[in-house]
């Protein structure tokens, strides 16, 4: 510790170089934290799913519908507590593809009953359930479009043609980010009525009494409809969510490759800076040895300098990533809700900083320790 002022003095000799090197380490760690958070967020969201919720879809494929009349038959099965259903609406608000957000036609009472994760004031909830042409929206849509309670919003249907106007009666906050805070929910009955009452549901959500019976009940539901016009495929809500995560393709591979390149590139920058500093100080190190500094101390001094750069840089980069994303409310165009740097990512970043310190400081440190005094001083003019 008593050599701290020496380390600081060395760092301040080329203030600009020190700052730039710290900044590149910070950038690298920021990027590392961001890339890893893409993966952790995808993973967390794919794990989402109430333990007691099952999802039934058409066995032929996700784009096919089921008769809404299945609801009563599912409800009559033993172990089933309640059933709700929903439809993907696929409407467009604005022409830009950036304006994309999801709309679901749901059966309000049973749906909100099954998803306590969708939180909204009781009076808004009641107003929504009461009014057939009303809708509730996630708070992000309020931030994005400035919509207010009581306002009429018109959405262009792509699957169900025409202009659809909904009155906003509620603004919800999801307690679990995987629910998404950029969704519009409206009455399934209203959709059904306007498209001529075909009685179709995109999927059913089935709440069961005991999560341990999930497998048996799922099979029971599928057996019930095996020989019907539309067979079902039932699984846990988590499996349903996970199937969406795999659709993005091999994201982890891409992020891994980029992450490696970033870390390696920055290692080169830091190592280069350390070596340049060491080279400039060859004579000085020799003098220090002459007046009695031990090899071990000199080794430690160089390593401490590298360590300072790596630690300060990584603290800045990781800290910035941790603070930035919640502040700007980043959600990756709706694909990465709940984007937040985890503690585990911070820990990996810190470990990376230590490795960076060793990799960039070790060679110059060993050189400083092993420097033969006579040879080094011969170069002094």
């Amino acid at each position: 510790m008593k050599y701290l002022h020496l380390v600081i003095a060395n760092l301040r000799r080329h203030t600009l170089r020190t700052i730039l090197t710290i900044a590149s380490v910070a950038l690298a760690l920021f990027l590392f934290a961001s890339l890893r958070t893409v993966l952790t967020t995808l993973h967390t969201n794919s794990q989402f799913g109430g333990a007691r919720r099952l999802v039934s879809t058409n066995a032929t494929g996700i784009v096919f519908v089921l008769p809404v009349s299945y609801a009563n038959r599912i409800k009559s099965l033993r172990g089933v507590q309640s059933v709700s259903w929903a439809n993907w609406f696929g409407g467009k608000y604005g022409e830009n593809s950036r304006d994309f957000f999801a709309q679901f036609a749901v059966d309000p009472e049973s749906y909100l009953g099954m998803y306590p994760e969708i939180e909204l004031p009781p009076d808004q909830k009641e107003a929504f359930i009461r009014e057939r042409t009303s809708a509730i929206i996630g708070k992000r849509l309020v931030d994005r479009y400035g919509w207010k309670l009581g306002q009429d919003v018109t959405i262009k249907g792509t699957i169900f043609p025409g202009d659809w106007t909904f009155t906003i009666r509620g603004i919800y906050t999801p307690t679990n980010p995987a629910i998404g805070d950029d969704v519009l929910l409206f009455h399934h009955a209203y959709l059904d009525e306007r498209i001529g009452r075909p009685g179709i549901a995109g999927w059913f959500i089935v709440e069961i009494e005991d999560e341990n019976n999930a497998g048996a009940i799922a099979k029971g539901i599928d057996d019930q409809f095996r020989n019907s016009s539309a067979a079902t495929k039932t699984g846990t809500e988590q499996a349903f969510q996970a199937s969406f995560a795999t659709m993005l393709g091999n994201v982890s591979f891409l992020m891994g490759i980029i992450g490696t390149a970033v870390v390696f590139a920055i290692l080169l920058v830091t190592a280069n800076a350390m070596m340049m500093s060491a080279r400039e100080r060859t004579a000085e190190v020799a003098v220090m040895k002459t007046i009695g500094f031990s090899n071990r101390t000199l080794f430690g001094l160089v390593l401490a300098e590298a360590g300072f750069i790596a630690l300060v840089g990584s603290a800045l980069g990781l800290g910035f990533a941790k603070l930035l994303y919640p502040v700007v409310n980043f959600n990756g165009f709706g694909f990465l809700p709940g984007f937040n740097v985890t503690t585990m990512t911070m820990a990996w970043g810190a470990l990376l900083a230590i490795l960076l310190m060793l990799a960039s400081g070790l060679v110059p440190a060993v050189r400083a320790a092993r420097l033969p005094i006579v040879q080094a001083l011969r170069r002094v003019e």
Partner: protein
Amino acid sequence: MIPIVYNARSMMQRPVSTTFTAVGIALVVAVFIGMLALGQGLRAALARTGSDRNVIVLRKGADSELSSGIGRENARLIAASPHVAAAAGGGALLSPEVYVLIPLPRPSDSTAVANVVVRGVSDQAWSVRSNLQVIAGNRLQSGRSEVCVGRKLLGRFAHLEIGATLRFGGRDWNVVCHFSAGGSAFESEIWVENEQVMPVFRGDVFQSVTFRLKDPAAFEDAKRALEADPRLGVDVQRESVFYAGQIGILGIMLRALAIAITTIMAVGAIFGAVNTMYAAVASRTSEIAVLLTVGFRPWQVLLSFLAESALIALVGAVLGALLALPVNGIVTSTTNWSSFSEIAFSFRITPFLMLIGIAFGVVMGVVGGFFPAWQAARLRVVQALR
């Protein structure tokens, strides 16, 4: 002018520092080119799917084939339009098509499924699209439960070899051929006869009608005529424009990702170049003083150091471009959210892309070298030589 050999030799004087800086830039350039190649590959696959000479008709307001629906009667009305080219054997060069998605299990992980496009086509579809080619097996025969599989699906899913049986929509289908489509999105599809697939899936309705224009220049006339027909209620687009637009949110995401990542990396690499060049200038103070003494102008010194920085960056950038080259042609896949279907495409590195990458690298060098070079140019001779 100070000869460039001076700079080259100076670079060789400090091999480690030069190498580190160059390799740092190389990595940034490689990532930059790689990410652009990803976007380029996806865009190319979609762009090649549509032809300028073809027209695709969807139901009004539908933004993809998935959300569209065109009745049999309307398909007949469209076929009767005077703008439709005639097929070689008589009839219209037109294909009313059924478009559905089926879940196929991934061989790597049986719990994961991908949504693959099954396209029900007419016999004319193979002539309407000019880049189609059956690469193995025999063409689909009318009236049979047969499928033809796009080349890019092979190897990624099971039961697609010729002679195999594929089960979907509650029926068994024989795989009779494989086809290529010039690297387009069609290569990620399974094709079936439309009349076979229609009753199995969505009932008596097509999703789109695609036809060849009799006169490619008359697109606007055709569009006006069909969209004005009150019986139809359709949107008419050039096939090329339609497919290029299908990139949607995915294109924005890829671009945002590429820009964010490469900007951050580039700034880091520039800092590295600044450090290197400052050290270079500092260690050559007396050399610079000599150059100025023998009559070189300060701006020539500035230029010389800029050139040195650019040279290091150029070496790095070329290395980076070569480093990125092996990803060219690697097939990857993702879900296209506009159509909700899985699309396979290859990373695509064009010479133009490499040139952009190299230029990007050189710019990094010039930016990073500017302030050190400026410092060198403003050196006081007397002070330096003391």
